[in-house]
């Protein structure tokens, strides 16, 4: 065997080997990601009942979206929920991150305490709040009554505004630590020397925050905003479990409408069309945010 032949067969076999190691990834991505992406578009062009054969009906599934009042309302509601949640969550996470950014005694405990709700599953967290805010079973109403803050049971999920308020509280509790952790990675990447230089130039705490911390934190803040906006626009668990869309369908999110179309109205084609619209909207929004914010 000559040297060069040996060399080329070795290179050839390394190519094959590379493919073999990557093959499981390719199969998973191909079958469970690329194929469903193609399928969702195809389904959206068909009348596709939960049971029974599909028939081509394009573009009916798309044209009827505008006439689906539940979906139109859900878009407005989800946008409102997303705006409020993102603002409050960013502010809270930033506050927490600033409080625990410096290594001091006990800071590790507080970081863990703030993050711990994030280790609990979101469904479990929603059920926890479901019990905690129940006037007869939970502790919140008795505590508020003892403090003299209320006279009668609070309708935590009984009115549209209270349901939204309670849900956002749940989301803040569950996700503040997660977002704090993201921001901490950004804060810790700011060199100590920058702060020292600013301080020796006589900058105050507020100046340091607005002139140094915020600008240098921008990429991390952008990442957090994108994750928060995307996550909120796709809200499902909190409303399905905690408010069940109520009262009077006032807390129905976009993904809930997709779910209802598919499994209560057995209209998989309609659900697929809504999915495609949501998918296109989110990919567009993400691209826009990445350009703008980074």
């Amino acid at each position: 065997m000559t040297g060069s032949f040996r060399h080329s067969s070795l290179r050839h076999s390394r190519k094959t080997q590379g493919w073999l190691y990557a093959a499981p990834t390719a199969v998973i991505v191909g079958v469970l990601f690329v194929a469903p992406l193609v399928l969702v578009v195809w389904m959206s062009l068909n009348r596709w009942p939960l049971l029974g054969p599909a028939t081509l009906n394009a573009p009916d599934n798309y044209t009827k979206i505008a006439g689906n009042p539940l979906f139109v309302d859900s878009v407005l509601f989800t946008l409102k929920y997303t705006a409020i949640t993102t603002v409050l969550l960013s502010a809270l996470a930033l506050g927490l991150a600033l409080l625990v950014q410096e290594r001091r005694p006990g800071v590790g405990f507080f970081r863990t305490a703030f993050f711990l709700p994030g280790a609990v599953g979101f469904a479990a967290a929603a059920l926890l709040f479901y019990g905690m805010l129940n006037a007869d079973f939970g502790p919140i109403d008795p505590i508020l009554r003892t403090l003299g803050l209320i006279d009668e049971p609070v309708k935590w999920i009984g009115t549209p505004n209270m349901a939204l308020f309670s849900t956002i509280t749940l989301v803040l509790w569950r996700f503040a630590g997660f977002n704090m952790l993201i921001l901490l990675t950004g804060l810790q990447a700011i060199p100590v020397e920058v702060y020292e230089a600013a301080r020796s130039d006589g900058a105050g705490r507020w100046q340091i925050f607005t002139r140094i911390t915020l600008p240098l934190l921008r990429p991390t803040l952008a990442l957090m905003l994108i994750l928060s906006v995307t996550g909120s626009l796709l809200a499902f668990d909190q409303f399905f479990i905690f408010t069940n869309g109520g009262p009077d369908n006032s807390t129905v999110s976009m993904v809930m409408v997709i779910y209802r179309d598919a499994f209560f109205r057995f209209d998989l084609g309609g659900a697929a069309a809504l999915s495609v619209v949501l998918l296109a909207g989110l990919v567009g929004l993400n691209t826009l945010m990445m350009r703008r914010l980074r």
Partner: protein
Amino acid sequence: MRRYTTLSALAVLFLFPLLWSGYASLEKPANYLRMAEYGEGVGTYATNSVLVSVMTVGGTLLVSALGGYAFARFDFPGKNLLFLATLAILMVPYATILIPLYVLLGYLGLQNSLVGLSLVFVMFQLPFALFMMRNAFESVPRELEEAALVDGCGTFRAFSRILLPAVRPALITVGLFAFLASWNDFFAPLILLNDGASFTLPVAVVSMTSGTFGTVDYGMLQAGVVVMALPCLILFIVLQRHYVRGFMSGALRG
């Protein structure tokens, strides 16, 4: 000092719900006995959840370790395309492809199947896991495996004997993320499983809120919350270091 007062007050707010849930469930131990007999029996649901988590963690580790090795050490046609396609999973919202996945798993004979559900979880974990594993393998010095290859080991022996032990921390991080995601997820099993006997814990415990004869058994419900939450809390506290590394790696940035 004022800082510590603020921190302590906040810590109370964040920890209170967790402590209350544990207290409310244990106040009457019978809560757990009723939960044990709920529906198909909590044992069935817990077993389903454990099976799904084990298959998801195992599958994610297997696929991402092999794939990470391929992307870190080999050149092959289509390499960049495959990597981008995997990362694109992050761009596509989870909820929008579950409906077609439901139909697709039906074609594959995996509807209402714990295996099918686990495969879907592996797919959703893959961008993060592959990114983590590729970076981990890239940071292992090439000399280490070249020595083994010169000694006559095949690439697979070098991979399993030399490289895998070297990337153990990354494997733990990937496994932890895969466990938390698969154990806790509610939406995917809600859509992909349709028979009570195959429900995982989140779906089963959420079904308790529909109540019997119009009354919800809140004590039993909190017992269910504790059974779901406790393994995650313990694992997180024990493996916190590895969890935080997942954030620091930049893998979330995809």
